[in-house]
């Protein structure tokens, strides 16, 4: 459940750091983590934050992600008034309350999840997006509450649920309450599934820890972007435990596909279309469709 994304990353052994780090394009030019090419940031953005040379998927801003995922202008955000607090009065080198404030200021959202109603190919869905920029997308009480509401809304509206996951796992600064968000969200998902409604989980880079070990790996359909890091334990923790180097491609989307843990790898360019078709094939409206 370790939030491997934290600043500790800087101290990681170089070969691991190189593997797990993925930069967000900024400035005029961008060096590709994968092929090493230096490409104009403008071109990267036009290619949906992918490398124009090799197709490598960069981490992209969540606000842009929302735009390219749902029907244009259809996202109506819900629960925007939920704010995090500091239930444990947690303090490491900084107070958790201060970490929250600076993340809010820097990212411009209250916490690490945004959700609401939208349409995909004209069909209504209850959809949510992890904001990885906000404390590594870690799940505390606010994220857990919003995900629970997303599933409850899908049940009330009788529409499919979709989550785009990108998270280092549970938020340590909220202690056991973070762990309990795994149970809370998953219980809401279980009710949705029982009611015969579909849930599609999209795994982005990275999806690990308590988020992987709850709703992220429980999709009726699970699709992953290429080469996303997906797993329970972070690679550093595993390396330290078993004291050997991890195999090439370990815990990447392609590895999970091979081991039967995800249904498909879908490129960012095809994601919207794939999700739309899944909603149309699996959603409650399917009976009404013409033969």
């Amino acid at each position, binding site marked *: *459940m*370790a*939030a*491997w994304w934290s*600043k500790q990353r800087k*101290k990681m052994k170089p070969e691991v750091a190189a593997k797990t780090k993925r930069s967000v394009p900024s400035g005029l030019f961008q060096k590709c983590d994968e092929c090493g090419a230096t490409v104009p940031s403008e071109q990267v953005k036009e290619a949906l934050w992918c490398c124009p040379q090799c197709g490598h998927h960069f981490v992209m801003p969540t606000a842009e992600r929302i735009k390219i995922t749902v029907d244009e202008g259809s996202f*109506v*955000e*819900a*629960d*925007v*008034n*939920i*704010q*995090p*607090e500091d*239930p444990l009065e947690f303090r*490491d080198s900084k107070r958790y309350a201060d970490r929250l404030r600076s993340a809010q200021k820097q990212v411009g959202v209250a916490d690490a999840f945004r959700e*609401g109603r939208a349409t995909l190919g004209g069909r209504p869905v209850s959809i949510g997006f992890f904001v990885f920029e906000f404390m590594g997308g870690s799940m*505390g*009480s606010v994220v*857990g*509450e919003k995900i629970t509401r997303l599933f409850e809304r899908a049940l009330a509206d009788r529409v499919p649920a979709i989550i785009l996951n990108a998270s280092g796992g*549970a938020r*340590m600064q*909220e*202690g*056991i*309450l*973070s*762990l*309990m*968000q*795994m*149970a*809370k969200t*998953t*219980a*809401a*998902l*279980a009710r949705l599934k*029982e009611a015969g409604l579909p849930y599609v989980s999209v795994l982005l880079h990275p999806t690990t*820890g*308590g988020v*992987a*070990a*709850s*709703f*992220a790996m429980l999709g009726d359909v699970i699709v992953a972007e290429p080469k996303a890091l997906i*797993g*329970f*334990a972070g690679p550093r*923790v*595993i390396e330290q*435990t*078993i004291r050997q180097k991890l195999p090439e491609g*370990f*815990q990447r989307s392609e590895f999970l596909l091979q*081991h*039967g843990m995800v249904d498909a790898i879908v490129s960012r360019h095809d994601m919207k279309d794939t999700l739309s078709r899944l909603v149309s094939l699996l959603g409650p409206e399917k009976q009404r469709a013409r033969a």
Partner: protein
Amino acid sequence: MPPVIDTRQALDFERPIVELENRIAELKSLGGPQLEIEIRRLERKARQLQREVFSELSAWQKVLLSRHPLRPFTLDYVGRLCEDWIELHGDRAFRDDESIVGGVARFRGRPVMILGHQKGRGTKENMRRNFGMTRPEGYRKALRLMKMASRLGLPILTFIDTPGAYPGIDAEERGQAEAIAKNLEVMSRLPVPIIATVIGEGGSGGALALGVADRILMLEYSVYSVISPEGCASILWKDQKKVETAAREMKMTAPDLLELGVADALVPEPAGGAHRDPEAAADAVGEAIARELSALSSLSPEARVEARYQKFRRMGSFLESGPGA
């Protein structure tokens, strides 16, 4: 008097007490009426010292107690609380993971399904049980047995005692995250009563995989946290020596969890901890489970599942101003 403990197995803060007790045992073995006054004086002193030490245990000391090598494990409780225990093995897909034990038994006359993490005594058994760190097949064995219990109407009693899910290549290959997640999903909807008792270490997702219950009981010196204090110290403080601070800041002791609304009840331990009197510890656990089981049995399956949903639904702490968008 509690059983004599090998001082090498005592924790630092237990050692002065254990040394006194060993001295008392020595004097007793010598016999003779002239020693009795001295023995009684030392016994008073030992009790006094134990009260002092245990009345102000730090969070980290409780972590150490929860991991005490002599602490009663799941099978110790099963042996004392149940009759007709039949252990059931395997996930029917890959392997039997011995870091989780499961089986049917009779608890106070009533057939129940029992599941618990199982640590080993000594190196050899610990290797076999992987120090209580479970792989996917262990969670899937638990899942198989929980589904069976549900179909046959057996209440489920779980015992939580794990450092955490095993972080290894093979575990990841076989879907560690999915295995844990599946247990959470299924447990949240099972119609039978589920009572989870944290008897030692409640280590993150690996603990929760047996923990989505109607009631969560915690032994007085057990702990339950999102990450180990060692992991937390290394990530947030970048300093392995900050474990005591991390243990304190995470609020992971039984009284903390009671206060945070995660644990439902705290089961008091015998003076000096469960390992000083495993029989008394098991009695207290048995009483607590029997009480909860009787209360839960009076509810309909639908009411139980709804109450379980609401119990976890309430967990968390946030602010909300005005109506949502």
